[in-house]
């Protein structure tokens, strides 16, 4: 590509930007295809840019954009404020969906703890003592644990936001 990209390209561009194309640059551009392209294109685009300034009859009003941005910021703030509630709602729905399985899982878990106790010759009796005997107890246990976890998570979230 070095054959087609002129080494004096930057000088030509600088001359165009300064608005004063000296004779040397002009005569070079006549001989150099790359620099003549630069002159041609920049001339056209600068003219077009000047024309574009006259075509802007009615731009959107600044106060309209300001108001739009303010409303958007408000919506974003509301969305952020509601995020913990949305998060808890998802957890609650998940817990509700899982609750029917507790009836099945409860005896399986109990059996699992007992078999571990036998296999490792370790007394897991304290686990079995606190292990919920009924579904209601399990729900209570899960509910209170869930509340504590959610309180911790939401406190962390609020602190992080602040």
């Amino acid at each position, binding site marked *: 590509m070095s054959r087609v990209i002129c080494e004096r390209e930057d000088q030509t561009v600088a001359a165009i930007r300064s608005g004063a194309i000296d004779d040397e640059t002009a005569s070079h551009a006549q001989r150099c295809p790359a620099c003549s392209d630069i002159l041609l294109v920049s001339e056209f685009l*600068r003219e077009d840019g000047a024309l574009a300034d006259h075509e802007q009859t009615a731009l959107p009003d*600044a106060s309209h954009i300001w108001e739009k*941005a303010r409303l958007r910021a408000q919506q974003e703030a509301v969305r952020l404020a509601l995020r913990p509630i949305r998060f808890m709602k998802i957890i609650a729905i998940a817990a509700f969906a899982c609750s029917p399985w507790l009836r099945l899982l409860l005896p399986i878990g109990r059996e699992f703890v007992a078999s571990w106790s036998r296999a490792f010759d370790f007394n897991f009796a304290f686990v079995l003592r606190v292990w919920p005997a009924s579904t209601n107890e399990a729900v209570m246990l899960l509910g209170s644990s869930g509340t504590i976890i959610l309180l911790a998570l939401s406190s962390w979230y609020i602190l992080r936001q602040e």
Partner: protein
Amino acid sequence: MDETSFRLFYEQSAPRVFAYLLRVTGKRPVAEDLLQEAYCRLLSSKLPAMNEAERRSYLFRIATNLLRDRWRRHQEEPPPVSLPEPASGPPQLEIQLELRKAFQQLKMRERELLWLAYVEGCNHKEIAALSGLRHTSVRLLLFRARRKLANLIRTGASSQTEHFK
């Protein structure tokens, strides 16, 4: 930024951003939408303290990203030129229209690069920062776009000259 300073900044910067968006998209309603979106994003972004030139540069970056997002979504064909038909206008205006048609035949990326380089006066490094391209790629892409436009302009100008003979 408070409302008064925003208004001032908008009045100073909006015409140039709008011209850029209009020439790259070729559609006034699209350019207006993108202009509003760019300023909304500027206002909602939590920026460190900036001077006006930095803020303007950041605005052009947002506008360029918006153009690219839009192009990715729609993969637009070259749009029609939104200049009024100069049926009885001077020959110079007709030539300018032809040249503008030539500009619209370029790809969106090429129009972006050329406008930033020759109207906004950005150097390769600044264009790279605005467009997310590498510095070396900008040089090459700009060269190709320039050559393509120069050929189109020469072809268009020669046909116009023939027409007026």
